[in-house]
């Protein structure tokens, strides 16, 4: 690091010698004063891993003369390969955002109604402890639920468990990747993990079904897709929208939305009927092939044509392309897959297709990841909860492998669901539930039933406005957090260390928990003084230290396993049969289809369009819109409208409209129309996360529209409880006239 710092200084000094081409100058000119590094500047580098999304890329936070400068990737890091994405590069904006929370806030009742008043940390903790101790003594520790997102939550999770609750949840399961995870568990006995174990850089054929890598900037995948493009991989993109990925693809299949499962079954049909599957792999590792073959016998490309609007020749050609490149064909499992309510079964079809192609455990398909696990420090056993989230709907969602945030929300909103299992307190860490859970009115209803809502956040996210107590956390650039241990091709750990002192009166979550625990009688679970001590002891488990990690940021440990199956290797899968389950007996036993079966979904009424949503490379969910650096890249979302649809409604590019869903709900804010050829005429698209209603988020307030408030017709996946977003039908509310055009 010292070398690097010296280099920069030398460079700045060297620039003084810049001169001017003689024919073009009148007198000597010098631009070096405009260069960002000047002689004598003091530059520091502090290791971090990114908190702007869940990919957790490791990098360096640079300061210059004690001021924030830039964040760049750590070249040793296999999540980022030394290159951060747009959002990670813009992470400094989270620190510099003037709209950040600055001090604890307490909701108080005044003569003019409720308002927040600034509070000391002591007051905030005392208030929380009084309420939580009352909840515990009245209802039991189980009545606390924690919603979290992000790496700072570690100690709050410990606190929740020590309090006696297993109701720890996150919208990242039932509102995002859950169906995929459970489908792969049912099929292969393992999930694909995060970051996903996808071997895209070695794929000869990459199939993306509604997954818009390149707009979702899951850094490693984006980098590997670019490598695959360079190497001439054949990309097949299934999307109603001509996504960025579609623009890189050999085959774009502009499928009618909601019919993906029909396409998948037709692909399986072709591969089975034409004998294109990996026979040796299927014989050695799978079970249920005959049942699968019988189940898809009628799912011909001709059957799928009127459903999907994709020509049978295209379906056959793409199926053969997949088989030709197998096993280096990756049918990507996607990440946000909560679309239509049968998403686990659709993801099962993705898993089955991969199994037929023999891509699981094969180069160019799915590799076997390695990861590092730390032992927790010795602590008293957690109290055993008398009930958990799973008991809130005991007869439903038998294959849920994780807690269902929406179920906990619903049970809070409607205590009659489980009268003897009341949820009376929410601890919400870094998760803006108003934007993350569908049907925000239900979330608000649930909040009305709480004795206590604590929100821990870095910014005044909408959920904070509903809280009784707001605890302002410092950003990831101002704190230590747990060591990054997430899986990959090698065993790596990464450190997040503070580059700055906490701004204003903000504090790290670890400090908050240390203050709160004794007030709840739970200090025995936190036998450390500060994060430096805790991290140093943790790192000693792998022969490292805080001092070393502060110097190198990322460390690669020995002991990674093989990435792929060896030729003919025997493998026991963690499924009931010990094999890859093409047909699932456990699904059949629970009354579900052993092999996925296509059922049509609701269609938009006349004059309505299916609302699709996705990601922007500049933003993560609804949490970065106010980041000044990222807001400059994209300050509002727009509504993709096909040219023909726009003509039908007389819509002009850039015109503001509001949207009304079929239940009559109108978007709070208008959104600008983007007239484009890049989407089907029956669908509309917007990036999720905009249309903020919190005025304190000055850059985000009222900019663009929020798709979440329009989500309707929320089908719930009967296997595992995921809430579907894409059965939402909207029409235009034209601003100028105030009446609906026909």
């Amino acid at each position: 690091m010292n070398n690097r710092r010296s280099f920069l200084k030398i460079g700045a000094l060297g620039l003084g010698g810049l001169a001017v081409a003689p024919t073009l100058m009148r007198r000597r000119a010098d631009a070096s004063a405009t260069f960002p590094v000047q002689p004598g500047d003091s530059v520091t580098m502090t290791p971090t891993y990114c908190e702007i999304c869940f990919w957790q890329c490791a990098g360096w936070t640079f300061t210059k003369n004690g001021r924030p400068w830039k964040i760049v990737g750590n070249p040793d890091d296999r999540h980022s390969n030394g290159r951060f994405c747009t959002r990670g590069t813009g992470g400094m904006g989270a620190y510099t955002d003037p709209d950040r929370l600055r001090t604890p806030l307490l909701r108080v009742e005044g003569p003019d109604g409720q308002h927040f008043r600034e509070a000391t940390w002591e007051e905030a903790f005392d208030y929380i402890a009084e309420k939580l101790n009352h909840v515990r003594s009245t209802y039991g520790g189980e009545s606390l639920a924690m919603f979290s997102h992000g790496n700072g939550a570690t100690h709050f999770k410990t606190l929740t468990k020590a309090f006696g609750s297993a109701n720890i949840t996150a919208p990242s399961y039932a509102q995002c990747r859950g169906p995929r995870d459970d489908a792969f568990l049912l099929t292969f006995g393992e999930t694909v993990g995060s970051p996903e174990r996808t071997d895209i850089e070695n794929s000869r054929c990459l199939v993306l079904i509604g997954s818009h890598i390149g707009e979702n900037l899951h850094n490693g995948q984006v980098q590997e897709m670019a490598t695959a493009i360079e190497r001439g991989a054949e990309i097949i993109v299934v999307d109603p929208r001509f996504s960025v990925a579609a623009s890189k693809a050999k085959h774009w299949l502009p499928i009618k939305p909601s019919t993906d499962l029909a396409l998948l079954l037709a692909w399986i049909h072709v591969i089975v009927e034409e004998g294109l599957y990996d026979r040796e792999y299927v014989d050695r590792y799978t079970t249920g092939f005959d049942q699968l073959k019988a189940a898809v016998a009628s799912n011909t490309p001709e059957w799928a044509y009127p459903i999907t609007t994709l020509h049978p020749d295209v379906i056959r050609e793409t199926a053969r392309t997949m088989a030709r490149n197998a096993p280096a064909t990756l049918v990507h499992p996607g990440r946000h897959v909560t679309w239509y309510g049968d998403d686990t079964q659709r993801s099962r079809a993705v898993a089955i297709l991969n199994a037929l192609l023999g891509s699981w455990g094969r180069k160019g398909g799915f590799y076997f990841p390695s990861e590092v696990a730390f032992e927790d420090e010795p602590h008293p056993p957690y109290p055993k909860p008398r009930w958990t989230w799973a008991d809130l709907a005991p007869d439903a969602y038998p294959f849920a492998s994780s807690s269902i945030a929406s179920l906990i929300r619903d049970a809070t909103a409607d205590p009659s669901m489980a009268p003897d299992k009341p949820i009376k307190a929410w601890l919400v860490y870094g998760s803006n539930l108003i934007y993350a859970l569908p049907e925000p009115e239900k979330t608000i209803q649930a909040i009305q039933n709480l004795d206590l809502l604590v929100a821990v956040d870095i910014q005044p996210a909408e959920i904070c406005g509903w809280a009784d107590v707001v605890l302002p956390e410092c950003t990831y650039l101002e704190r230590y957090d747990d060591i990054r241990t997430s899986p990959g091709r090698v065993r790596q750990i990464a450190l997040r260390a503070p580059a700055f002192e906490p701004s204003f009166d903000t504090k790290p979550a670890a400090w908050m928990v240390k203050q709160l625990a004794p007030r709840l009688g739970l200090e025995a679970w936190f036998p450390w003084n500060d994060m430096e001590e805790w991290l140093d002891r943790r790192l000693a488990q792998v022969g490292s230290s805080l001092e070393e990690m502060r110097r190198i940021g990322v460390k690669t440990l020995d002991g990674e396993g093989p990435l792929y199956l060896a030729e003919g290797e025997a493998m026991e899968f963690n499924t009931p049969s010990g094999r890859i389950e093409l047909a699932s007996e456990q699904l059949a036993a629970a009354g579900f289809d052993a092999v996925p079966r296509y059922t049509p979904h609701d269609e938009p009424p006349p004059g309505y369009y299916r609302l699709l949503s996705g990601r922007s490379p500049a933003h993560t969910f609804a949490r970065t819109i106010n980041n000044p650096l990222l807001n400059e890249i994209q300050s509002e979302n727009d509504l993709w409208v096909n040219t023909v649809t726009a003509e039908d409604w007389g819509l002009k590019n850039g015109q503001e409209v509001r949207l009304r869903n079929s239940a009559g709900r109108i978007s709070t804010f208008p959104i600008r129309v983007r007239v484009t050829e890049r989407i089907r005429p029956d669908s509309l698209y917007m990036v999720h996360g905009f249309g903020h209603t919190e005025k304190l988020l000055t850059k985000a307030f009222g900019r663009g529209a929020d798709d979440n408030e329009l989500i309707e017709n929320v089908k719930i996946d009967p296997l595992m409880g995921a809430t579907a977003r894409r059965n939402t039908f909207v029409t235009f509310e034209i601003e100028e006239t105030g009446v609906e055009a026909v």
Partner: protein
Amino acid sequence: MKTRRYAIVIDTLRCIGCADCVVACKTENEVPEGYCRDWITEATTGTFPELHTEYRSERCNHCSNPPCVHACPTGASFVADGSNVTLVDPELCTGCKSCIAACPYDARFVLPEGYVSKCTFCMHRVEVGLDPACVSACPTRCMAFGDCNDPDSEVSRLLRTRTWKVIAPEAGTEPNVYYLT
């Protein structure tokens, strides 16, 4: 003295238009809010469903025949000695905007301080052997920086082996940002 012709070669087949290059430039060079030295252009042709979309990361082309430098009445816009990199001396710049009018790429702007700013090809980094911030940040590695006068450089190799284009060649500016197609 050896003359370098620095260029950025951008592979449009890899570029996803994510604007990481824009944020990397803004933070590296401390470009004030509301301004940028590089930007993303999207170009879509065709009609549904026969479409082609290209993303381009654009910036000053550091032209070999720079109209901005010719147009500058004070000598503030100049070509760095030994290369094609065009720079602006804030002490000499009066903010008259002649260069802005002359530039076919819209690459220049006037800062609130009253002088013109634009991409420097990150000369402060290049001088110490680093790539420009935009190039080194790009997650798709779609950009290469180097000296076209060096036949062994990555940029020379790419321009020899791939098809490419430049923006507004008809302007006669001999631009040095290339797009692989």
